[in-house]
């Protein structure tokens, strides 16, 4: 990772040249692509990250089911190379889709019909040429919002002070690499990553970041690439502890794990986006008693929840004793607790009681 733009262009060239060679030698043109699926993903204990294995599959031209995808792969590769060479502004992956979608002459067929076709191919190319989408001048839309004591110099030259972003907070830009998002100053003691915007919003209005001297970030549910990359930078470059505040249910747990160990689909991105030191600061089953959460705030676990709990149990990165115990105990408890529901205790409960108590007593799940 971290290859130069010239190197990436060269990689794309090589990819094209190999296919040309196939053609000139009368062979079935092929592309080799690392498999991005659960069966080619493993949990690396030494780094604490989910990583991509080395299983690959070939995409052939003379295969009725693959021919179109083969063509689409080359079209996208060519377009990415052109974008980099021309020094054009970064495009969203939807915009890229539109630059490539066109009618194939002499037919009623389009090169691409919808974005579902182009998105996975972009990821294919990322792994093929060992690049990150951000380096390829392609952006996914970030959803993240940030506040707290950090000063950043934006690519535009503007200086951003995240203590002065008001009640809405500051947006996380699509690309948070150093040349786009240069961290000038940061006096925070830790980062609090909040699963839901509503909870983040309440904490921000109460200026929790000021009381706790922390950065307050939300990815609004499943985080996009930019939020994950930002957490990774703050955790590795500034050595800030990361606490993930999520729902007490398997979905919340999984969001925590995406920040911490990475995701299956983007396993190749884990090293750039993971934060192995991150800790779960959300509700634990024993907290229900500790904080005397009223029964009215309990939500019964549905079948999908129970099924998801079983899936989490089987992920290698959830195989620590404390997580296995917690998953079992959640199942036994039979209910989930949403982070929003803590306002039932009192509006200030989360900021004034819950979080300080957790941090002071180091009551985390790891």
């Amino acid at each position, binding site marked *: 990772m971290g290859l130069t733009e010239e190197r990436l262009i060269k990689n794309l060239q090589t990819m094209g040249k190999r296919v040309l060679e196939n053609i000139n030698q009368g062979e079935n043109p092929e592309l080799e692509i690392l498999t991005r699926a659960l069966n080619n993903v493993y949990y690396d204990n030494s780094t604490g990250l989910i990583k991509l294995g080395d299983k690959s599959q070939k995409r052939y*031209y003379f295969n009725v089911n693959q021919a179109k995808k083969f063509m689409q792969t080359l079209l996208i590769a060519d377009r990415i190379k052109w974008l980099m060479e021309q020094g054009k502004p970064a495009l969203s992956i939807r915009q890229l889709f539109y630059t490539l979608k066109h009618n194939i002459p002499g037919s009623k067929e389009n090169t691409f019909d919808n974005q579902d076709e182009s998105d996975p191919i972009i990821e294919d190319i990322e792994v093929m040429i060992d690049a990150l989408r951000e380096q390829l001048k392609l952006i996914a839309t970030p959803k993240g919002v940030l506040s707290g004591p950090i000063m950043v110099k934006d690519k535009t030259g503007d200086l951003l002070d995240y203590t002065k972003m008001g009640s809405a907070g500051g947006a996380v830009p699509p690309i948070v690499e150093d040349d786009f998002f240069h961290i000038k100053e940061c006096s925070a003691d830790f980062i609090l990553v909040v699963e839901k915007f509503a909870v983040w919003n309440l904490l921000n209005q109460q200026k929790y970041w000021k009381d706790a001297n922390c950065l307050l970030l939300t990815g609004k549910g499943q985080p996009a690439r930019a939020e994950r990359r930002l957490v990774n930078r703050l955790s590795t470059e500034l050595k800030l502890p990361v606490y993930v505040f999520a729902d007490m249910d398997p979905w919340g747990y999984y969001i925590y794990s995406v920040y911490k160990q990475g995701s299956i*689909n983007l396993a190749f991105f884990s090293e750039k986006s993971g934060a192995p030191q991150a800790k779960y600061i959300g509700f634990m089953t024993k907290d229900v008693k500790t904080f005397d959460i009223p029964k009215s705030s309990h939500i019964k676990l549905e079948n999908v929840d129970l099924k998801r709990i079983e899936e989490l149990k089987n992920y290698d990165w959830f195989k620590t004793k404390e997580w296995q115990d917690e998953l079992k105990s959640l199942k036994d408890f039979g209910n989930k607790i949403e982070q929003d529901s803590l306002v039932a205790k009192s509006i200030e409960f989360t900021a004034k009681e819950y979080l300080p108590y957790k941090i002071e007593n180091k009551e985390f799940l790891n």
Partner: protein
Amino acid sequence: MLKLMKSDFMTIAKELAKEHREISVAEFFERNKHLLGFENLQKSLLTCVREAVDNALDACEDARILPQIYVELKEIGENRFKIIVEDNGPGIVKKNIPKIFAKLLYGGKFNLCQSRGQQGIGISASVLYAQLTTGKPTKIYSRIGDGKSHVYVLHINISKNEPEIISEETLTGVNGHGTRVEMEIKGKYIKSRLSVNEYLQQTAIMNPFAQIIYIAPDGKETEFPRVVDKLPPKSKNIKPHPHGVELGILIRMLRATTARNIAGFLTSDFSSIGRTTAIKVCEKAEVDHKISPKSITRSEADKILDALQEERIQKPPTNCLSPIGADAIREGLTKEIHPEFVATLSRKPTVYSGHPFIVEVGIAYGGDLEKEGNISLLRFANKVPLLYRQSACALTKSVTQTSWRRYGLKQSSGALPQGPVAILIHFASVWIPYTSESKEAIAAYPVIMKEVRLALQEVSRKLALYLSKKRRSKYQEERIAMFKRYASEIAVALSGLTGKEKEKIEENMMKLVEEKIKKLELETEENSELITEDVEETEEKTEDKFKENGDIE
């Protein structure tokens, strides 16, 4: 030429005559004309043409002459037509002309053979119909090759059922042979379904050895050409098989026989009975085998009939049948429909109720056939098209009961299949088991249904094979077009990636596609696939509930 059918009418007519002497043949006809094909103007026109054409074809075939038939319809007034039918048959000897055309139910023997004539009551009924509806006599020209032409103008004496000769003359210095009939009737002309044109076209399909020229009322001439130069085998007369007779027929045969005793009658007047069997039958029926057939009473005849049915008797000979054969059916379908695919089949003779029969089928695809809607079903009995009462017919049921989807055709359950297909079924027998007197639908004897079904299955399998081959080759073409289409796009992309000339890449790419196609076609013939169909190892979607990365804007 007598058909058994006619003798049935003879029985009815005679019995009617006994009981009610005052009822004339004309009244009998008037009362029963719906049974004889004259229930409405449209059908009456068709029936008159059909009787004349069927007779002409039978006469030619009997005399081993390749038929050449001329049919002309002239509209001479509102719902009034002149019908002219002329053939190149052997002609009719002078003395027989009046009776054949102007005496209802004229005939003699009990022998059976496969002929068209079973269809109706015969040409004399048409002559009577003409007389009753327009009052005009029928004119006959007959040449038997002796240089003369006998011309008769005939009426039927209705009360006596005898010919009434209006005029007769003999022309000399005339060449060739053949018969020409001219009559004037009330009728209604239509062009589409159930029309004279449809009847003639189907006749042309089933009789490809005949040339038929048709002048429609609008003056338009249609030629149905001869495409086969060989007549079907001549059908031999056979005597009735004991398992195929009914009491009425048996009684009449007993009256008419020249045999001196009953055992002799059974061996000489029936097929497949030897003397030993004959005596055994008499014993079982408790009838002295030495007595004269003329002295047999009705109840004795009944017992003899029962004894005959119980006795195991050899199957009847099948040389009485005259199938047209798979090749001729193919020729017939091809010349009239111009299909892209035809399969035909002529089954071996089989027997139902003592009557030998043969089923012949053909299936045609494409060509002039309508792409949408039901298939065309062409039913024939002894080479004569059956146009009416399609849904009541066993031949139709055999088609609707077949599951056509497995043969690549659309079909709603219990209905005819759909698509550009013609299915031809020919039922040939010395005795056609019609469901009713109208003689348009064949009865559903299980053995007949089974024969038709087996025949259909065999030709349909061939059609299915053809259709799947056709679909496959269409699929191949689509694939080739796809590879070429994408190749142009790939050339652009590869040129961008490598900086090489786009035209050159495209050229090489096309060359590669051509090469792979050649190999592909070669291997397809061996029924294998070069181009792999294996599905790319399915990319397992992550089990995450939420879509990661927020990629979709």
